[in-house]
């Protein structure tokens, strides 16, 4: 079965609190995320604005703020070009989880909800079960298989 999410993680030799600060403060977000500044109203429902010099502005909405363990927002970035207003059906959910590990932090990000994106043929009732293999791999396998049998 095909999942519709991306999962990545990294291990950082710094305390969870420091990673939390980098993740959630506008001054820092504007550095590692956008390259032309950021604004964030750090509370559920708060607005998030990410700016890129060349790609314009992307809007988001904060979903969860549970310092220093979980930070989540919805954004319209993955499918949008240029300025994008956040509306229902054009956004995906990005969830960061932070866990203390040895002397550092395990930082995990999951971006999900690609199947729920509003497109003419979308069937919103569809449900996708989680699968750690990831879409790219699943699709790649199927693609490879399809190419073999159609060659």
């Amino acid at each position, binding site marked *: 079965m095909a999942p519709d999410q991306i999962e990545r993680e990294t291990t950082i030799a710094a305390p969870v609190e420091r990673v939390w600060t980098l993740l959630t403060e506008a001054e820092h977000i504007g550095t590692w995320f956008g390259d032309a500044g950021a604004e964030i109203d750090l509370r559920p429902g708060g607005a998030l604005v990410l700016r890129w010099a060349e790609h314009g502005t992307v809007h988001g909405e904060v979903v969860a703020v549970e310092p220093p363990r979980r930070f989540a927002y919805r954004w319209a970035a993955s499918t949008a070009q240029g300025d994008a207003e956040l509306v229902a059906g054009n956004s995906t959910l990005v969830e960061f989880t932070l866990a203390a590990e040895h002397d550092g932090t395990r930082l995990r990000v999951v971006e999900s909800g*690609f199947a729920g994106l509003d497109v003419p043929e979308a069937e919103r009732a569809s449900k996708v079960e989680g699968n750690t293999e990831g879409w790219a791999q699943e699709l790649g396998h199927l693609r490879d298989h399809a190419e073999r049998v159609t060659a």
Partner: protein
Amino acid sequence: MDDAGVFAALADPTRWRVLSLLAERGDGTATTLAGELPVSRVAVIKHLAVLDRAGLVESRRRGREVLYTVRPERLDATARWMAGLASEWDARLAAIKRMAEAE
């Protein structure tokens, strides 16, 4: 939004099986596919129509039946798109790591 259309098309488990069966067999008709799935021929026809609109399959007439085959280009493009998004996250996580470990 083409990639999103692909996700929406594949999000249904039965539709995913229809596409997987087509990929395994090389081609198929609504009748042959329904014979291998716990759904009716009519249901298979509806699923094939969604896959067709998403650009995931193509069809041609063979006698009184319509023969379907997988279009790998669409899947290939979507797989590359997802791989691109994943590597963007890798780059962002690496940037956070550098910043966090800098002091």
